[in-house]
């Protein structure tokens, strides 16, 4: 069972729908016990970095950190990926999970923001999450803040400058794009995660 953590940040049904389409079971849940029972965890989310506050502490935070300590595969999507970095300019007073090094920053006034649409990614061959995805593949993005390149970056995207499109370390994965909205390429990424 895959727990899709419902911490109040946006619409999670489409992630569950995509996972169901791939033939896997998932549950959208706000229940810490259900997160503990799951064998994989997905942290989706859209919107402001402050929306990740419920993940910072309390029942949610404890359950998610316990899943990480037990080395359960975890996938952060969009805001979920940004939360896996140390923090974001969007809410400087808050801390992220700090799995990945660096702070998320806003796109400058030089480009339209949010960065909305299908953009190409450059994939590092060592990636397990993106196995079978070729560099040049298009995925769907929609975000106003971007994660920096770090040691764990396994795919980059270019908009104004290069940023992290995907990162992974051990069983911990994060993607800035929306795999549930990226057609067959996105479904393949989710399928790779479900198979871990």
């Amino acid at each position, binding site marked *: 069972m895959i727990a899709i953590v419902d911490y109040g940040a946006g619409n999670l049904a489409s992630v569950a729908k995509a996972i169901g389409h791939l033939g896997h079971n998932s549950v959208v849940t706000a229940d810490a016990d259900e997160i503990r029972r799951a064998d994989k965890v997905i942290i989706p989310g859209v919107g402001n970095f402050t929306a990740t506050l419920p993940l910072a502490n309390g029942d949610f935070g404890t359950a998610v950190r316990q899943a990480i300590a037990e080395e359960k595969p975890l996938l952060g999507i969009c805001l979920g990926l940004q939360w896996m970095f140390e923090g974001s300019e969007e809410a400087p007073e808050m801390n992220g999970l700090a799995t990945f090094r660096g702070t998320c920053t806003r796109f400058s006034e030089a480009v339209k923001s949010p960065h*909305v649409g*299908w953009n190409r990614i450059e994939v590092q061959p060592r990636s397990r999450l993106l196995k079978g995805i070729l560099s040049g593949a298009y995925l769907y993005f929609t975000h106003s803040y971007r994660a920096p390149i770090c040691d764990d970056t396994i795919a980059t995207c270019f908009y104004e400058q290069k940023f992290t499109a995907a990162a992974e370390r051990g069983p911990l994965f994060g993607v800035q794009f929306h795999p549930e909205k990226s057609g067959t390429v996105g479904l393949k990424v989710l399928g790779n995660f479900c198979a871990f």
Partner: protein
Amino acid sequence: MRSETLAKRIIACLDVDGGRVVKGVQFEQIRDAGDPAELAAAHSEAGADEIVLLDITATAHSRNTLLETVRRTANQIFIPFTVGGGIRSLDDAAAVLDCGCDKVAINSAAVADPLLISRIASRYGSQAVVLAIDARQSGTTAWEVYVWGGRKPAGLDAQAWAKRTEAMGAGEILLTSMDRDGTQSGFDCSLTRTIATAARIPVIASGGAGEPRHFVEVFQQGAADAALAASVFHFGLKSVNSIKQEMRDAGIPVRLTC
């Protein structure tokens, strides 16, 4: 300077009435073009980058039919999905988003109550709010906003309104030229360029698509971020893929799927 890699989007629009896709051809005849869920899946398969479903009657009576249509359609596609028509409140927006769409398009209700934009954006994020503008030319370089399905002038300048809605939290602008809508004579590149270069959020051009070259024109001359069309796709006049091939040949970044 590295070239831009963000693809210009082609969006297929389904005009829906009573659970069926319809399209008025120059407002005269209404042709039944099929089941929305099936058509959405077919467009997605054919390479459309997004699907927009517009409830063209949008009466309270038809609301439950619409929600069921949205739910069925959302189950068929794994690309971004926007729903518009008759969204007048945060509750209306929540109802369609809960049925599985990703964005709502709001038009008349935002003119009547601009704070509605902020309310939806603060609950669901700006990426979920598409501000639809129906504009008609009112001067050499001026366009006026119309509401109520194009029946009533709103007394607003399209450019000023676009900037204002951006400040209130709209994530994208869906800009329809009423002068071109239904004519298949090409997008209004002048209108599109005016809004797309003034706005700091993406602008989707709509109204007038008839030929692949019209899409090339609206991206090159109109500076559009995306272009939307309905009947040009439904009746097999041109496939999404043939339009994208022509865009690629013109040097426009595009996502080719087949």
